[in-house]
């Protein structure tokens, strides 16, 4: 029994404490409180089993392949070549934070100084910044009932932090780039985004893998992001998961929306053998607005699961969601979109749409819209469709001279482009459109 328990934690935690101690000299730092947070999370890790398909929240998502494995925590890797990293840069996003295997890589970071935003690694926090972080870090992404969040928090060493001060509008997008460079390790990236009252910012959270790192071996990324929008704040959150096809990627993101704030997110899942993204948006005050759009594009034997929850806890909230999956090969996509309208959250307006495109006979999708409405005066709509490419559409394009293959590619691309077009960063949009085109052509 004890043997299985050790294994079931995925992370091989031998010597973890001593490693952490050597990396961090926290005792006298303004981050001394981190120790307590980690210990608290470690208790949860010990208590919580890994989920299986017997758990309702994991019913469609079999992670037994991951559960069987044991990964050592990542150690700082050799310094990467500038060109290896530069391939992932996004032209417009000149404010950049880079982490390699979870470790801050200041040599690749840039910008920020004149943008009005405070963009830094947690370990470099000043006393004032540490004080601003403390009420939020580990407080929104609850770890008491989520073993992966607990593991991330228990091993928390560093984090990407973006603080946008009151009424500051940051015009340059901030690129937070997490690079996986080592095999057989677990990375625990962490993000904290704080948009203070009336501020505005766009953040790209980007997970990539150095392709030469491991064509045959895997790594495990266990990421946690916490986002806070104070009153009237606007935050656009672009999340791109483009890890290698052997990777395991599990991520939790918790978003707290203040009064009349506006959170817009586009998440794109392209990579990983098995991936899971939990996005939880809580409207903590009246009149907040969120848009949760997503695209999953997978093939081969990939499994990608997106679980979202929009919690309308207060009145006059608005939410919109468009989630699309394009599934090829014998891949398996899961979408579970929960919308909660709490008692008293009157005049809530929630729209959800999930559209899925199956490219092959073996492709598989499980979709589950879930509305839980406890208020009486609300407007909630949801819809889900699963289909194949429309043969009339293919014929229409063929009748204009396109080959059947080109027609199918164009339609598949167009299906995905509807979500990608919502990304307000041109070069990233173009990159992703190319990826969609390449991936579509590869599998048809």
């Amino acid at each position, binding site marked *: 029994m004890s043997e299985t328990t050790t294994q079931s934690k995925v992370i091989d935690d031998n010597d973890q404490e001593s490693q952490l101690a050597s990396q961090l000299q926290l005792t006298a730092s303004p981050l001394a409180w981190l120790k307590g947070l980690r210990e608290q999370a470690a208790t949860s890790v010990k208590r919580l089993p890994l989920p299986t398909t017997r758990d309702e929240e994991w019913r469609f998502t079999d992670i037994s392949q991951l559960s069987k494995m044991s990964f050592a925590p990542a150690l700082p890797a050799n310094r990467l070549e500038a060109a290896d990293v530069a391939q992932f840069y996004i032209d417009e996003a000149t404010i950049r934070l880079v982490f390699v295997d979870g470790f801050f890589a200041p040599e690749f970071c840039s910008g920020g100084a004149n943008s009005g935003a405070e963009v830094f690694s947690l370990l470099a926090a000043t006393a004032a910044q540490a004080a601003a972080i403390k009420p939020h870090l580990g407080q929104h992404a609850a770890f008491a009932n989520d073993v992966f969040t607990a593991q991330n928090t228990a091993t928390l060493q560093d984090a990407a932090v973006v603080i946008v001060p009151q009424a500051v509008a940051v015009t340059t997008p901030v690129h937070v780039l997490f690079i996986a460079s080592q095999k057989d390790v677990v990375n625990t990236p962490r993000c904290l985004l704080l948009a203070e009252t009336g501020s505005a910012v766009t953040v790209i959270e980007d997970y990539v893998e150095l392709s030469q790192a491991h064509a045959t071996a895997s790594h495990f990324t266990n990421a946690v992001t916490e986002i806070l929008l104070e009153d009237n704040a606007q935050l656009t959150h672009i999340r791109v998961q483009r890890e290698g096809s052997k990777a395991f990627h599990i991520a939790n993101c918790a978003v707290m929306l203040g009064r009349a704030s506006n959170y817009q997110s586009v998440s794109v899942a392209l990579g990983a053998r098995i991936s899971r993204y939990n996005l939880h948006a809580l409207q903590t005050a009246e009149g907040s607005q969120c848009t949760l759009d997503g695209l999953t594009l997978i093939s081969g034997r990939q499994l990608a699961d997106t679980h979202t929850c929009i919690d309308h806890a207060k009145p006059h909230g608005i939410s919109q969601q468009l989630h699309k999956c394009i599934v090829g090969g014998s891949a398996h996509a899961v979408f579970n979109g929960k919308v909660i309208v709490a008692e008293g959250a009157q005049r809530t307006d929630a729209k959800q749409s999930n559209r899925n495109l199956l490219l092959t006979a073996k492709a598989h999708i499980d979709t589950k819209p879930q509305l839980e409405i406890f208020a009486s005066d609300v407007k909630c709509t949801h819809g889900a469709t699963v289909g194949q490419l*429309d*043969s*009339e*559409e293919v*014929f*229409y*394009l*063929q*009748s*204009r*001279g*396109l*080959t*059947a293959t080109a027609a199918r590619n*164009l*339609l598949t*691309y*167009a*299906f*995905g*482009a*509807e979500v990608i*077009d919502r990304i307000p960063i041109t070069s990233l949009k173009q990159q992703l459109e190319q990826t969609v085109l390449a991936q579509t052509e590869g599998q048809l």
Partner: protein
Amino acid sequence: MIYADSKVLLEVRGLCASVNGIEILKNLDFTVRSGEVHAIMGQNGSGKSTFAKVLAGHPSYEITSGSVRFEGKDLLALTAEDRARAGFFLAFQYPIEVPGVGNSQFLRLTYNTLQKQRGHEELDPLEFDDFVREKMKLLEMSPDFLDRSVNEGFSGGEKKRNEILQMALLEPHLAILDETDSGLDIDALRIVAHGVNQLTTKNNAMVMVTHYQRLLNYIVPDYVHVMEAGRIVKTGDKSLALELETRGYDWVSTDTQVAASVSA
């Protein structure tokens, strides 16, 4: 217009086609020469639209017998895209919406595909933009249509104009307009008809499939055919369309039955 000694573009002989085992086209004969404008009329279910789709290569229809030669080539042996590349064009009754694909991107893609096929130079986005805007003037289309997704959110009339715009770009040798007039108000009809007339030359031909004589006031046909039960039962000039408008279709079938019984 009928020209002496013009070449045969399309020759349909004894064409039979079925869908899901139900025979729709029954021994259909039809000939089009270059320069000509034809109208095929007929009641719902007579097989007009099926005929148009069969010629375009729609995969749902099975050809059970007969032949179709297009400029001497066996049209039925070609894929739908090769028919388009060979100069055959179908303006759809219900043009498909393609959300996510910009109209200008789509138009340029189809244009360049055919240009390449014909050994002509492809146009880059800027060159194409000038070219397509010129063609759009013909149909009084706002350049805004270029920035929208293909047919998405277009009104019925806008979709039909977009079809004729494609025809203008692709310069087919033979175009079939499947109920291009349906759902158009009188202004839109006039604009579309004007565009079609501008595109008609002595080297190409048009076949209009329609329910209504109204269109034929604007695009004057050289021949009017009446289709019934999967074949052409009567052919005349433009006065036949007027006669159909006033007398309906019943007299045609009665006449045909009489003719059939006489010949039998």
